[in-house]
């Protein structure tokens, strides 16, 4: 049995929402109107990035991005990233768990003070675990109506993550769950292959970024995950590893 001595999820959400909106309003009131977007403005601009995330507590990533210089979309970046869960990799002593992302990030409806940042990302993931080997393909969309200030931006983030398909090769442990049942041949083994839509979630949080010097930019996403499932809540989320929070922190360096 588990003892929970921390806040209830509903109360925590209410508090977090109030914090987010209070900060947004205060920043808006205090910041000057002269605004810049930071890292993405120059066509041909290339950056590398190093990041950490909350994936299995210690996700690490390496990325590359460039501004393709498409006319009128000067704030656009195309990027590729590779990431892996550091602590799990160390525990596992193997590189069986990794993710590759390809995406586009762009600031839309630009003005001196406001913009909308849209990010669309396709990902391929590989994970070898006790249940088998999994290769999901998915898409992640986020939208941030951001307030632009002197050296960066900040705003609430809305995120949708959808697994399109997952290839599953079940382990012997799972196959053994079908043994000893005298049922028809159709159900003698779990089915390996491509499965549709094994997961999705919605994210609500905050996104921000700030220039550091002339060649660096730091970017952060922080939020709450709402898994699209009738079976999840704080108890089962914790016991099954579905921690309902996300955090991404990235440091970009202009080449």
């Amino acid at each position, binding site marked *: 049995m588990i003892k929970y001595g921390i806040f209830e999820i509903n109360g925590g959400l209410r508090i977090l929402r109030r914090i987010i909106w209070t900060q947004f309003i205060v920043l808006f009131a205090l910041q000057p109107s002269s605004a810049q977007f930071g890292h993405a403005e120059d066509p041909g601009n290339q950056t590398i990035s190093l990041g950490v995330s909350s994936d299995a507590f210690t996700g690490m990533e390496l990325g590359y991005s460039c501004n393709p210089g498409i006319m009128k979309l000067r704030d656009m970046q195309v990027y590729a990233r590779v990431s892996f869960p550091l602590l799990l990799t160390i525990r596992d002593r193997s590189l069986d768990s990794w993710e590759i992302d390809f995406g586009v990030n762009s600031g839309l409806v630009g003005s001196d003070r406001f913009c909308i940042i849209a990010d669309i990302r396709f990902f391929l993931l590989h994970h070898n675990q*006790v249940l088998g080997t999994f290769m999901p393909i998915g898409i992640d969309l986020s939208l941030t109506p951001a307030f632009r200030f002197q050296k960066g931006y900040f705003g609430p983030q809305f995120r949708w993550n959808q697994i399109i398909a997952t290839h599953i090769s079940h382990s012997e*442990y799972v196959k053994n*769950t079908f043994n000893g049942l005298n049922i028809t041949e159709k159900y003698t083994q779990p089915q390996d292959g491509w499965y549709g839509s094994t997961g999705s979630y919605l994210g609500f949080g905050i996104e921000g970024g700030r220039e550091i010097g002339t060649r660096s930019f730091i970017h952060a996403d922080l939020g709450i995950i709402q898994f699209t499932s009738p079976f999840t809540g704080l108890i089962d989320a914790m016991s099954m590893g*579905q921690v309902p929070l996300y955090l991404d922190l990235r440091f970009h360096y202009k080449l």
Partner: protein
Amino acid sequence: MKWFKQKNPHLLFCLLFFQCTGCLKDPAGPGAMVPPTVDQISGLPSLSIEVAGHARMIHFTTFGDSANPALFLMHGSLSDMRAYLPLQELQDTYFVVMWDQRGNGLSERVSEEELSYEAMVEEIQAMKDRFSPDRPVTLMGHSWSAVFAAMYLGRHPDALEQVILMEPFGLKSDFMDQVDISMNLTGEGYLDMMYASKYMTPKDHEILDYQMLAVLRSCVRDYFCDRDHLPPWPVWRVGGYALIVWEKNLLNGARYDYDFTAGLASFPGEVLLVGSSCSPIGYGFQQEYHQPLFQDAQVLKIENSGHRIVTEQYEALITGLRSFLKAYRND
């Protein structure tokens, strides 16, 4: 084809996309990721019982002569009867009845209100009405089922001959407040489950039960002697949603708030509490908190064992059971 690609590249992409998605397997398809339940296929031994106003199919099996006194054996949470099948050897003297509880194993999945504690007690009564309507039964429960067996004992003392409770958790919240059970969140098993949450959301019973298989191998809750070498626990299918509902109902906010001890002191029959040496709710816990709740209770200590007593120290368990069960004694 060339003309088609030239004139309609987007349409071709859409057609290919939808054709491919039509080939994708459905995670909720019966038998795709976890074995189907008895209401999804035929061929498995099943019967219908009415509990909480609903008739539900359950997966069951019996061993021995039905003329013998009945021994009901109930599995614990995140389990089914598979690991307990070796106990069928008690059929030499008893009519052994095992079943997957509603919402668990290969029995039909049910709604939240059908998984109430009262409904679980009602389920035991329904099985008694089916297999031993005129005679008291010997009831054995493990872990969560030991709690249900205790609840049944409190409500139906006349229905029971003897009761065996294998490591029930605290039958009162006050007892559980004394137990230090922390979750192992940095172990490989939990980290794997956390990483898997990026692509797997338990949106139906099939995916939930599938994911819960990983919990059995994760050592997130340390009830073991050796967390690096977990004892085997064979299952066909676990009942993930049932565990979620049962555990959620123990809590009031973030604290335990329950009392299952009503009626226990009035049971005149014999009770055997079984406790392991390694589990936080093992021998010492059972002796200190549960033994005083009954008129006539003894505690069987299983050495070198954690919570999965049946697979860890089977011989010690069966020896202790045979010493306790009336049909084996020359009383």
